């Protein structure tokens, strides 16, 4: 088991934090909703951290986690919406791992998602041989989740065609999955206590506008926002970029003042408000914390392998053009304008370096 885990590129949360979850289960004295492996308070401690005893797993407002858990303990499903890179999927993974001990019952939504990837499919060899039987049925995540009383995750639900989305309607309200091919009790799967659905949707994609209002009513919406606090975001970028750089053999993270320039400029371009409260235009591209981490990572790599230093704010300009702004010419203009007119006035060596490097933006 240990060997297997260490070879896994990205072990699921319940394996990664198996010890911690076991400890929480052991010390958990509060009442648990039926079918839950932990009480609500223990789940909160797992996700948000617990005074140093458990490290926090992500930066979100406590009340958001409260609302999400209370919703999941009720008969309503949870829909996490927000811009890309706001850690919606991570939150849903953490919730599923803590509540059901299993975050792998996951449906990946997409244009090609079909009902049998959600509910169940058939083993066609057995089906032809024996006809429809429980043995020939291949359960998909929803079937398994209902039968086992576990949380099911539905990633990017709005990328599915509306008719596929609507196949969830009866499951979410009646909490029963019909298998018309099978007779008797096998033809109905009643959801066991502990079953519920966490869906995520991306506001940049198609949004939730095309979702039917019948389905919308069955979800409680929670919007996940970029990290509100500068220091918290800076902290996260520093920690995560250092971790990534270490895996690439770079011994140190970019200097703090470089990261400060990076995170502050990301926040200004993201919110469309500069540090002094002046108005600017926000970028159409996504400048999430996750993008900031990958830019910081790129800055560290460039510095270490190209010049042998720790990276400077000038590198941000190129990384910004490459990873964040991508091919949006309009955004490129906005970045140039930001550099020329806002950054020009800033004091501090790294802000100057950031400004001086403006010619490195692609023309």
């Amino acid at each position, binding site marked *: 088991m240990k060997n297997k885990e260490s070879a896994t590129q990205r072990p699921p949360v319940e394996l990664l934090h198996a010890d911690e979850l076991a400890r929480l289960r052991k010390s958990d004295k509060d009442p648990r909703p039926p079918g839950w492996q932990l009480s*609500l*308070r223990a789940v*909160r401690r797992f996700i*948000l951290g617990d*005074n140093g005893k458990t490290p926090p797993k992500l930066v979100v*407002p*406590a*009340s958001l*986690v*409260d*609302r999400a*858990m*209370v*919703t999941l*303990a*009720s008969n*309503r499903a949870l829909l996490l*919406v*927000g811009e890309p890179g706001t850690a919606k999927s991570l939150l849903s993974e953490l919730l599923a791992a803590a509540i059901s001990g299993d975050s792998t019952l996951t449906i990946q939504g997409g244009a090609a998602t079909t009902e049998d990837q959600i509910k169940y499919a058939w083993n066609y060899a057995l089906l032809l041989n024996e006809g429809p039987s429980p043995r020939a049925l291949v359960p998909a995540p929803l079937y398994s989740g209902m039968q086992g009383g576990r949380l099911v995750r539905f990633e990017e639900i709005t990328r599915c065609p509306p008719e596929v989305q609507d196949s969830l309607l009866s499951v979410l309200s009646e909490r029963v999955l019909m298998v018309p091919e099978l007779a008797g009790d096998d033809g109905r799967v009643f959801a066991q206590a502990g079953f519920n659905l966490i869906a995520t*949707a991306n*506001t940049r994609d198609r*949004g*939730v*506008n095309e979702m039917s*209002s019948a389905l*919308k*009513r069955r979800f*409680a*919406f929670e*919007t996940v*926002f970029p990290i*509100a606090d500068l220091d918290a975001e800076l902290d996260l970028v520093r920690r995560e970029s250092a971790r990534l750089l270490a895996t690439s053999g770079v011994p140190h993270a970019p200097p703090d003042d470089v990261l400060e320039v990076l995170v502050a400029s990301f926040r200004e371009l993201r919110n469309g408000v500069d540090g002094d*409260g*002046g*108005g*600017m*235009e926000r970028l159409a591209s996504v400048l999430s914390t996750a993008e900031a981490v990958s830019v910081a990572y790129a800055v560290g790599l460039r510095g270490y392998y190209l010049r042998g230093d720790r990276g400077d704010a000038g590198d941000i300009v190129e990384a910004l053009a490459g990873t964040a702004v991508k091919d949006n010419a309009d955004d490129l*203009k906005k970045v140039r*304008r930001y550099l*020329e*007119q806002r950054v*020009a*006035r800033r004091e501090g060596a790294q802000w100057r370096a950031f400004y001086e490097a403006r010619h490195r933006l692609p023309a």
Partner: protein
Amino acid sequence: MSVEIVGVRHYSPACARLVAARIAALRPRHVLIEGPSDFNARIDELALPHRLPIALYSYYASDEATHHCYAPFVEFSPEWAALVAGREVGAHVRFVDLPYHARAWRGESQRYDVAAWRGRDRYARAQASLAARCGVDGDDALWDHLFERGADPVDLQKQLSTYFHELRGDDAGDPADDAREAFMARYVAWAAAQGCDVVVVCGGWHEPAIERLWPSIGEVVDEPSLAPDASIARHGSFLVPYADRRLDALSGYGAGMPSPQYYRWLWRHGAEHAAQAAVRAVVARLRAKKQSVSTASLVAAQQRIDGLARLRGHAAPLRCDVLDGLADALVDGALDAPLPWTARERLRGDVDPRLREALLALTGEHEGLLDGATPQPPLVADVARLLALNDLEPGARTREFALDRRDTNDASRAIVLWRLHLLRISGYTLDGVDAPGAARGLAPDLAYLERWRVRRTDAAVAELIEAGAWGPDLATAARERLSERLAATGDPARLADGVVDAVRAGFADLGTRTLGALDAALARSHDHGALAAAGLRLASLAEQGFWRESLAAPLAPLLTALLARLTWLVEGIAGAQAPADAADIDAVRCIERVTRGDLPVDAHAASAALALLRRRSGDTDAPPALRGAAFGLLWRRRAQVAQHDVGAAARAMPNATTLGDFLSGLFALAREDVVASAELVAALDRGFVALGDDEFLVALPALRQAFAWFPPRERGELAATVARLHGAGAGTAHALTARLPVDVDAIGRARELERDVDAVLARYGLARTEIGA
């Protein structure tokens, strides 16, 4: 003898209950309350049968400006509870804080400034770590979670004391804190010296400091007092009616409280009832606004409210539980802004309208009313004095005035009327301004004759009392109101109107507050044409001044801000093929006017604007007219652009139409230089000669528009230069620009043709309506 100091949070029902209980139990001889001590002589005014909420309004005027603040009272303010309970037990009730006019307070615009609180580093850190430990978001939710759960008073007092000591720690506070705490401690020492029981009610932040300070002060014989500093011209306090919506922190009162109505329920009936009433109020308000809130979603929301309360360990749901729970029923899509009650800031513009309504349902609609015997605000007296002084008193019959701004006496009368007009006091009507007999070139903003009508109205009395909220005297009140109006507009034209109004009302020096408001308004403006028009108007006002009053210095900060915003917007204008737009050219003209050097604008902003024009002049993405104008300005200033560069840029224009647009911009900015440069004219002439006939016809409208910038005399000079180039000999300028002889029939045929073309365009829906019509 005992001294008990009860630290409170203003507007906390739990603290109000605690204070009332302690005073009833101890029956002290002295009740000392944090509040302006210069009001003590009139403290009985608070005992009149008012209807709450009311506020104690304090102000002082120094040489530079007038400052004011409010200290509102609601029935569940601990301070109010102390006043009531103290009177009931027959104690001496006193305010013991520094008077508002005390030097240490100077510059603090409101009594409890949230920004200052936030600046208290230790406070912020302690609050944040407590909130994280309790798993709640925001100071309000944290407070409710800790103290509004209906704990036993004895426990509550201990918990509060621990909490406040933890928050304050050994923080010395800022100088204002120091001075206030020393003064309050002195008061405590004075009361204690009389050997009887004392209860002190003060903000929790000050409790630890006063507790530490007072025993070390020694015996104080005389009641502390503080005379106003010599630099203070006027000062005072009076009671004003207040309202729930003004109390609501979210509607702008810095250290106010959120949702007064909710806390009123909490105070009167307890948490259980308050939660139910809150749900009812929110649903009723939304349904009244024709928003559907289904029973099913309400059931789910109620379930969530109860679940959240249990999870957070609240015996009955508190405000954050109710709102968090209701969010489920109210939100059915992605939000643009976080749930507004999780952060303590003004209600942002992008908050979901349903959530905004939900919060407003908890604000309440109580309006305070003062008892008839209460003294009136000083504004009323100030206005009466000014009207008498200037012989402007309204009568039953309409009085008409024609006031000439060039006359000193008339100007000061006009200023009074303008200020009343800005306060929207009825009965003072401006009929119009004009400038009879003045030169045609006089800017409309300088029209010097104002016609006013003045008449007494019933409404004016009430309006004046209300306007007292804006300031104790006419000047302050009018200025305050104007800056609020300016802050609310994002339209540059209205902004310029506002500045002209300010100048006419004698506020040429706009003051930092108004400038701040204008800065914010400018940041919302996205129309560079309108901004440039406003800029040109204000620049001309700044250059010329307003009847003996110089405006260059007062308007400079505003023009600097405007220049910076314009620079920002011009950077974004795109469209390599865009036809000449007057807005683009105006923007450059405005930059030219403001940076010409005779206005004291910020040098950095000016050089940034010129750097921008240099960038845009060479930017092939920019509209040709903008590039032409930028070239024109730079050439004229001889700023790294020579006549040779202009010629090269003109030759590089991809076709004849863009050339015309380019020239439009160029001529608008550098007309005289073009006329003077025979070389450039020759280069342009070569360009035109090279055009084919068809090309020339296509280019003609743009070219005509460009050459329209030249007045007839200069057009004549140009024509003469061109004639020489083609060896046609010299005619007089007049002859060269005279109309060509065309016979009447030709004109008639042209008209007919145009009419036919218009008809065809109209038939296919290609013409704008005014052409068809």
